[in-house]
Each structure stands twice: as structure tokens, then as C-alpha cells.
């Protein structure tokens, strides 16, 4: 670059940053007036600044345009008192236009950022700091997700993210998120190696794994790997890795930028327990299904009322059968061979006589469903084997499904189950147990 062009760039940068003084402007004027190529060089730098501004702005162009109108509307409101009735009318009009704009935006898919994933799972207490979520909702590049409570699971192309509220992340792209605060667990499937979670002081790169990251502005970052491998880096103030540590199964580390420390810490499996309890091996749910964030003490009729949704409760997970087990399933008896690794899920619906409509929903598992237990006798018989130890179960005969009223359908690959429980007075309780077998232990019944 010529020295003249370097000077132009220096002056254009200072102008852009608001740092150019009178002498600088005079010099710029002199250069621009003296040589047409300087005008071109100046505009090239200005265009670069403009483009970088747009690159860095997480808003889409139409959000930016509406933002301008919104600021205008706010400005009008501030002037309302001074301008009196006339200004009041105009402010309202601007607000009306803004509402129309936002409505148009909400209904328009024309310019939205690229969709990267979906909301795959919510607990029954899941809530956001702002706005609301629904199952299946699209997650787009640049989305800021602020979970206030409960667990929200986001499915990206190769990665499942579980956010345990309170937690905030920004979705940078399908291979990276920024963890702003709280805890996120990433389960990276084959093909997603290289997935990155960044916090202010660290960067964790997946190398084929399931790992958990917690960030707190005061305490720093904790990382643990339940299985697989991850590379954890402590970043310096410029965001450059200063220290690197590779973590493998059942290892954990703590980061402290203040002390410049990246050290191993004891692995604590209990950090994963909440997630196992609320999601287990469920890949996604849809419709009016939720998982409970806390195990209720009792599922006896009337004790755990669910109004317009059904609860899916992960029960005992990865039970290894010591001897063959025969269970009564929807399609007849199923024999599970000894050595099978089985996980259980109970679908519970107890609207009493309060609910207005019967819910519908479906759930998809990573592994196939081998048995669908709908009969009260079979449910009671399997409570001992697959039920949670401190949970009280209903033993009366109305607990099962009514074959002519309730619906349970299983997909061809046996991984998705859709359910529809009709409300059938006088006893409203309906329960269904699903047994899912680890693929390694699958034997055809």
C-alpha cells in the first residue's frame, strides 16, 4: 500500500472512530481534493467499516430498519410533553406503524437468519427471561437464549445442548455457542467433532464427547467430560489460548484467569444427574408433553395433577437384566433377554375434572422402544423393576389405558411414540410405561 493510501486509511479510521480533530480533517480535505485516487481509497476504507459494522451486528437488516423506526418512536415519546397534543398523536401513530412493522416482521420469513436447530425438549417449569419458547421452535444464528428456570434442550445438526436455568447462551453457528452465564451440557454426535463452547475466559473444543461447562463471572469456568475427549483452553485477555489441557472421560478442570490457572479438579457425576433425571435418553418431545424438573413424591391418582399436558418421567436408566424378563406390551408379550440394558419412562396424565381438552404429543428416543406397557397389571408388575425407589405408584386398575379410547402409536424405526389420552371420567388417571433398550443390548423379542 502506498504511503499516501496508508495515510488515507489512518485518517478514515480516525474519522470513523470519532477521533479526527480539525488538523486531521484539513489534511484529509487536502488529500481528497488533490488526487482522485485518494477519494477512491477513502471510500474503500469507509465501505470496509460499513461492512464490518453489519457483520458484527447480530440483527438482520429488517430488524435494524425496524430498530431505527423504534428509536424514532421513542424519540417522539420523549418530545411528547413539549410538543403537546400534536406530538402525542404523531408518537402514537409512529407506535402504530412500529407495531405494524413488528407484526409484519413476525409473519415474514424473508430475511431471517439461517435456521440452525430446534427446541427439542422442555421441562414443565422451563421459562425464559424474555419471551417464550415452544417445542419445535426454530433456533437461528445469532439467537440469544436466556433460560430463567427449568431445562431447555436445543438440538443442532450434530449436537444436543441442555441449558439448565438460569443460563444464557448465544448461538454463534451450528458448531459454536458462547456461554454467557450458567450451565450447559453438550452431547456431540458423530460428525460434530470440533464443536466449541466459549466463555469469557475459556474455550472448550469437543473431540467426540459429552461434556458440561459452567461459567460464572466471579468463579470462572468449570468443565467436566463424562465421556470422550475435549480440549480446554484458558484464554488470555486478548482471547488467545494461554494454556491448554486435554480432558478425557470422567475428568474435570477449573479455569481461573485471575490466577492464570487451569487445573484439574475432581469429576462430579452428580452434575449430570439433574439432566439424566429430566431427559434421560429422550432425544426430543413435541406437543403437550413435558418432563418434570423434580421427581414428584407420588403418582397416585389426584396427587400429581397435570392439566393440559402429559408428564414423561425418566425412571430407572440402564438397568441390566440378570435374567430374561417377559413383559406384557401393547403388541403382546415381549421377552427381554438376560443382559439387556433397559431404560424406563413413565407417561403420566391426570387431569382430574379440571382440564378442558385432552392433550396430544410425541417423544423420540435415541434408542428403540421395545415394550409399551399399557395394562394396569403389567404396570404394577414392572414398578418394582423399573420404578423409582422413593416414588409412590398407583396400584388400582384404572391406572392403565383404555384400548378403545386412548391412542399409542410407534414409528417404524421404533424410536418415536405418539400418544393421545382421552379424558375418561370418573377416573381420569392414565399411565403408560415405555421400555427403551440400549442398541448394544437389543435382541428381537
Amino acid at each position, binding site marked *: *500500500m502506498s504511503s499516501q493510501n496508508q495515510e488515507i*486509511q*489512518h485518517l*478514515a*479510521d480516525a*474519522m*470513523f472512530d*470519532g477521533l*479526527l480533530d*480539525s488538523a486531521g*480533517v*484539513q489534511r*484529509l*480535505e487536502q488529500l*481528497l*481534493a488533490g488526487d482522485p485516487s485518494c*477519494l*477512491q481509497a*477513502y*471510500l*474503500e476504507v*469507509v*465501505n*470496509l*467499516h*460499513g*461492512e*464490518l*459494522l*453489519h*457483520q*458484527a*451486528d*447480530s440483527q*438482520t*437488516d*429488517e430488524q*435494524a*430498519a425496524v430498530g*431505527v*423506526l423504534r428509536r*424514532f418512536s421513542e*424519540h*417522539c415519546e420523549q418530545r411528547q410533553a413539549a410538543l403537546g397534543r*400534536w406530538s402525542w398523536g*404523531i408518537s402514537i*401513530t*409512529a407506535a*402504530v*406503524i412500529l407495531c*405494524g*412493522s413488528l407484526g*409484519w*416482521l413476525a409473519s415474514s420469513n*424473508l430475511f431471517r437468519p439461517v435456521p440452525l436447530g430446534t427446541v427439542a425438549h422442555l421441562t414443565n417449569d422451563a421459562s425464559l427471561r424474555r419471551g417464550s419458547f415452544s417445542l419445535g421452535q426454530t433456533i437461528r444464528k445469532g439467537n440469544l437464549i436466556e433460560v430463567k428456570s427449568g431445562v431447555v434442550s436445543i438440538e443442532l445438526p450434530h449436537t444436543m445442548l441442555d441449558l439448565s436455568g438460569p443460563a444464557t447462551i448465544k448461538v454463534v453457528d451450528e458448531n459454536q455457542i458462547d456461554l454467557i452465564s450458567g450451565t450447559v451440557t453438550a452431547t456431540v454426535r458423530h460428525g460434530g467433532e470440533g464443536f466449541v463452547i466459549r466463555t469469557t475466559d475459556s474455550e472448550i473444543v469437543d473431540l467426540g464427547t459429552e461434556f458440561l461447562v459452567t461459567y460464572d463471572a466471579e468463579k470462572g469456568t468449570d468443565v467436566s467430560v463424562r465421556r470422550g475427549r475435549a480440549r480446554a483452553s484458558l*484464554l488470555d*485477555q*486478548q*482471547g*488467545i489460548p494461554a494454556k491448554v489441557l486435554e480432558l478425557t472421560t470422567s475428568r474435570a478442570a477449573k479455569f481461573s484467569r485471575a490466577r492464570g490457572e487451569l487445573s484439574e479438579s475432581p469429576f462430579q457425576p452428580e452434575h449430570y444427574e439433574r439432566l439424566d433425571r429430566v431427559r434421560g435418553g429422550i432425544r426430543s418431545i413435541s406437543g403437550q408433553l413435558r418432563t418434570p424438573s423434580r421427581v414428584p413424591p407420588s403418582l397416585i391418582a389426584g396427587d400429581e395433577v397435570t392439566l393440559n399436558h402429559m408428564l414423561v418421567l425418566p425412571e430407572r436408566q440402564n438397568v441390566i437384566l440378570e435374567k430374561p424378563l417377559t413383559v406384557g406390551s401393547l403388541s403382546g408379550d415381549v421377552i427381554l433377554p438376560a443382559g439387556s440394558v433397559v431404560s424406563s419412562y413413565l407417561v403420566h396424565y391426570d387431569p382430574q375434572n379440571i382440564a378442558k381438552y385432552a392433550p396430544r404429543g410425541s417423544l423420540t428416543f435415541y434408542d428403540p422402544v421395545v415394550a409399551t406397557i399399557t395394562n394396569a397389571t403389567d404396570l404394577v408388575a414392572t414398578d418394582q423393576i423399573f420404578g423409582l425407589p422413593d416414588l409412590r405408584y398407583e396400584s388400582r386398575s384404572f391406572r392403565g389405558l383404555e384400548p378403545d379410547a386412548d391412542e399409542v402409536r410407534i414409528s417404524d424405526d421404533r424410536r418415536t411414540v405418539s400418544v393421545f389420552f382421552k379424558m375418561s371420567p370418573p377416573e381420569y388417571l392414565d399411565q403408560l410405561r415405555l421400555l427403551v433398550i440400549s442398541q448394544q443390548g437389543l435382541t428381537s423379542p
Partner: protein
Amino acid sequence: MSRGMDRQKSGMHIPFSVNELRMSSDETSRESEFLRGLSGAYRGLHICTLSIVGNRADADDVIQEVCVILWQRFDEFEPGTNFQKWACAVGFKVAKAYARKQRRRRGYGLSDEILGRLAQIQSRGSELFELRREILQECLGKMRSQDREFLMGCYGARDKFVNLAHKKQMPVTTVYTRLGRLRKQLVSCVNRALGKEPSS
């Protein structure tokens, strides 16, 4: 009297008349058309105004005023013609008026002649600037991720750099030095790709 004339006769920098509170469905559709056009042209329009005022904060002020005036004069826009070209022409006028006002207030600024020539070159050179923008994407892709993030952090922040430096716990001079180095690196990268600079 047309709604457009209503807007112009109001003589204020506010685009909407009270009568517009009672909008028909046709008018709502007109709004949508305006917003669609504005959204598509927004990035280019912002750069047009930036090319005149040069300063980021001033450009933010000008773009707001430009959007309002565009709406005031939207009836003048002929459907089917280039919205961005029309919007930029308005943007240049508003930005030049703003720059003149700032020059009077501050006591210094670029002359009207230079501002006029900048507007001319910016509007005529759109294809070249578009090409440079495309190459810039490649150059950003080649950057070290830490540098790219730093750069995006600086451009994405609405804060002044002093505040940014405070947040990043680094001296403000370090922010400027690093930013300046990265900007030069990008300009050189684009120029090299266009054969304007020898490869290093």
C-alpha cells in the same frame, strides 16, 4: 390531497400524520412494501450515509432521519424501480445536510465539494465496492479466530472504546493499536486479492 402530500406539507421531520391512525388494509400493505424495500436496502443505505459523514455515531443519527424522510416521500417511489438507488439518493442529500450542520457547529469538516464527489463515486462504484465486500468475507475467513472475534467485538459494541477496553481489562491504547493493525491487515488482504498490492 394524497397521503404523500400530507406528509410533505407537514414540514416536520416526522413521517406520519394523525390521519394515518385510521389505516385501511391497502395502507397497511403499503407499509409492508416500504419496510420490505427498506430492509433490503438498509445495509447499502447505511454505507451511503457513512460515506458522507464518515463517523459511526453520526451515521447512526443520519440513518434514522433518512428512514423517516423515505417514508414521508414513499409515494414518490415508483414500484418496480430500484429502491436502494432511490433511498441512497435521498440518503446522500440528508447526510450532506447533516455534515454541513456539524461543520458549522464544530467549526471544521469536509467541504461541500468533497462531499459531493464522495457521493458521486460511492453511487457509481457500487459494483466495485460489492466485489470488495465479497473478498472481505474471504479475508475475514482467513483471519485467526481470536482476531476476528476481537474485531467483531469492537464493531459490534455500541460502547465507546474506553468502555470496551475497560470490559476487556486492557488499556484503551492496546484496543486501538490492535484494531488498527487488523484493519490494515484486512485492507491489504482485499487489495492483494484484487492485484493492487504485491503478495507478501
